[in-house]
């Protein structure tokens, strides 16, 4: 039960319950005719309804937002505070849009529904579609862009290492090739005569080959994940929840793109570290002296600590353009539909 569940699932339900009877209920009790007959225009009525529901929601949401901002200012360091604050402001704006979508859709349905009961049922159905459709999208994503299980993935990586990528360049052949290349390069006959430590070169070489294998395998896997995620976002065409979830996770820095960003910078750091160690073996020792001169603590102290630089808010926005677009389209469609329904809205209740 996170803040996201409340904001994404429960608040829309509250909006629906507050707004489903806005027009349909007034029509049934006959007050709609009265209100319109005293000179209130239909758009005025709609604005009033929107303000009324917003006020009721604001009573809960405004204090919550202030608390959120306070928690943010207490928890973040000064360096990242500006970035975090802009992320928070964007998040607030996105949720306002999301609520506005539900509000306009609810008012639209209430205006065109033959009865308030019908309006409520249609709106509850719409709300549950928001819960169901993302699951369908997740499974469709798994079907269209299949990902290997951990077992298969490990087996594939091991195979690539053993037999070479695409089975062209097996492990033993790679070692032999490297040896011949080094012997030629330094113009000597045995590895003992090499000015560098062959172990170190071989380690680095195998490391780099491993990097290639992992880059390829993880690249495939992550591309599949990203395709799956895009399909989920596309479910936002019918379910705004999917779009707002993508945007919200991205702004909170807890989505896949942010994880990938972190994983890649950690990997860069690891590669740097491994290369430094292997180079130490290669250039500070020889194949015959069992790494005698290799430095220990002194070397480690030269290596900088890993410092993660989180991406700027623009990164979050940029990676979720599609979801932002969908939310904007929903909002526009909601207002457009509401305007259309206001014109068409009948004042007289029909027997249903």
């Amino acid at each position, binding site marked *: 039960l996170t803040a996201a569940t409340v904001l994404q699932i429960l608040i829309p339900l509250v909006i629906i319950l507050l707004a489903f009877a806005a027009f349909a209920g007034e029509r049934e009790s006959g007050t709609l005719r009265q209100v319109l007959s005293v000179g209130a225009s239909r758009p005025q009525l709609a604005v009033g309804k929107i303000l009324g529901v917003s006020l009721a929601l604001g009573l809960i949401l405004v204090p919550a937002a202030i608390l959120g901002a306070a928690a943010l200012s207490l928890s973040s360091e000064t360096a990242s505070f500006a970035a975090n604050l802009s992320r928070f402001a964007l998040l607030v704006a996105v949720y306002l849009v999301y609520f506005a979508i539900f509000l306009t859709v609810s008012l639209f349905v209430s205006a065109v529904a033959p009865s308030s009961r019908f309006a409520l049922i249609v709106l509850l159905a719409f709300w549950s579609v928001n819960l169901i459709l993302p699951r369908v999208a997740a499974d469709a994503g798994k079907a269209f862009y299949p990902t290997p299980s951990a*077992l298969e993935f490990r087996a594939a990586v091991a195979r690539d290492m053993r037999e070479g990528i695409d089975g062209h360049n097996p492990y033993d052949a790679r070692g032999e090739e490297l040896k011949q290349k080094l012997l030629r390069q330094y113009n000597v006959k045995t590895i003992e005569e090499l000015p560098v430590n062959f172990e170190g070169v071989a380690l680095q070489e195998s490391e780099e080959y491993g990097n290639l294998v992992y880059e390829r395998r993880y690249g495939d896997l992550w591309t599949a994940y990203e395709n799956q995620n895009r399909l989920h976002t596309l479910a936002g065409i019918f379910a705004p929840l999917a779009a707002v979830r993508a945007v919200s996770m991205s702004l909170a820095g807890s989505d896949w793109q942010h994880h990938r960003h972190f994983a890649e910078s950690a990997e860069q750091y690891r590669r740097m570290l491994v290369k430094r160690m292997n180079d130490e073996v290669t250039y500070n020792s020889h194949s015959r002296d069992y790494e005698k001169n290799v430095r220990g603590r002194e070397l480690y102290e030269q290596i900088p600590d890993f410092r993660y630089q989180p991406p700027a808010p623009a990164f979050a926005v940029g990676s979720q353009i599609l979801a932002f677009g969908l939310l904007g389209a929903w909002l526009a469609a909601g207002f457009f539909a509401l305007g259309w329904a206001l014109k068409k809205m009948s004042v007289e209740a029909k027997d249903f």
Partner: protein
Amino acid sequence: VARGGIFRARLGVKKDERRGKGFLEFQMQKPARSKGANDCGFGIADCGFDFRQTTNPKSEIQNRKAHLLRACFRNKCRSPHDSRGRVRQQTTTLLRAGALVNKNRPYCVRASAFFNRFIFKMFLKIFKHELRRLWRDYTAGIAALLIFAAALAAAYNGAHAFRAQAAAQANILAEENESFEKMKRDAQAIEAGEKKAPPFGNPLKASSLKLFYPRTAALPPSGFAFASVGQTDVYPSFYKVSGRHREAFVGTQEMENPLNLLIGRFDLAFVVVYLLPLFIFAVSYNLLAGERESGTLRLLLAQGVKVRSLLFGKLAARAVVLLAPLFLAAVLATAFFGGADVWLKFALFAAAVVLYAAFWFGIAALVNLYGSASATNAAALAAIWIALVLIVPTLVHLTATAARPVPSRLELIAASRDAQVRARRPVELLENYYAKHPERRPAGKDLRVYDFPFYYAAIQREIDRQIAPEVERYDRALEAQQDFVQTAGVLSPALLAQEIFNDLAGTGFNRYQAFYRQTLEFYNAHVEFYEAKSFSDTPLQSADYDRMPRFAFREETTGELAARRLAIFAAHDFNRRRRFSNLA
């Protein structure tokens, strides 16, 4: 006239030729003071005698009638109306009348409210009319079609996921088997002298095999797995067991897109647990409220229809409309996607679905009986659904992580790293080992001479020994947390149903934990087999290949599963004991 009120019982006689039994029909009429159309009640008492055995049925009936009447009035039967002139619950009065007669007469008069023939007939009539009505306004058709399609798609989806898993497992096991067979052939060839033993990875040397020959312990998806994907995305369905220490395979994790884990899967369990209640609410939020709002409820009740038979008739019609297509889809799915011995599981699944649906129909009936408007009912039902399906399960999981925390995996990894550092004294470890197993000590072996396979194995076993308490602590904590979740599951029918479906599908924590425990056993056997050979430095023979331990998952029978599930409702400790005894 009985004391304290007006009571008139008009006794009619009904013949039932098929059963040949007599019935006495009561009608209680409203007192002059009371208002309202439905203040009268019907009842039927089964006199329990057989017309065919009496010579003069008519006089016999007259006789019984008189008895019954006398019994009713003589025994100070309470007025069917209370002091304000409202009718007491008719059934209570009828039951009391029946009991009075019963006490005084040799023959039996039954006036059971529920199985009363008159009420049952009325129930059937309402049921039939309701079905017709639902059919006419397309509600039934649309709901039935939707739930049928959803259930079938979900089952297909689940089956698809597990087909891929089973295929991948089979592939990898076949690959492994192939390399095993090759090694066995090599061993035979070397024994026959056709081939020279390689210096590295000699198939007749246990010490090298143990290191370089990992075996896969795989958990095959159960025959009923398609019903619920459950925890498949989280727990590994395989472990690669080798001569390395335990932590090397204990830490195995499944790989999955985190977004998919967040959202969950679209499987049969989801359709039942999440969607079925929504469908139930959609068709029954206005059971009585709808009739009341259109004014027909008053008319119906004025004709002597009981609220109870009306409600049950309507509910039964809706249950048939929703459950029949659901079960049709489930039967089709089980026939197409199910494995062996799947029908008993299906029966348990069906029973769980019926109970779960009954709970939600009950909630719908309860909300309807409160007598609010149908829009209010719909909102109330949505709120109850959110509370029981979304909020309570989340709260249970949050409480479980707070009250029964599981130590971080990182701690376990750190412990195994520390152990690795501490264990780097192979000579001492080997000395200790041979002190315990003197019969295995190879003659004339100098332990101080570096021998990689020996040293490596000794170090791995020492790491195992050192991290064993950590691993055990972790496993116990995980099991305690799951126990907590299962016990707290009674707070939400959704949680309970999901657990049951996971168990039946073999995708819940219990089966994965059993798999894990069995893998540990297998690991011990695996290590022991090679250790006995390698530390004593006895050469392997090709025949030994057939004696090597292999992993095969021992499945819990469906009976054991059902018993374990039922035990959750019994004492908590019993449940715990039972589960561990199953695993051991």
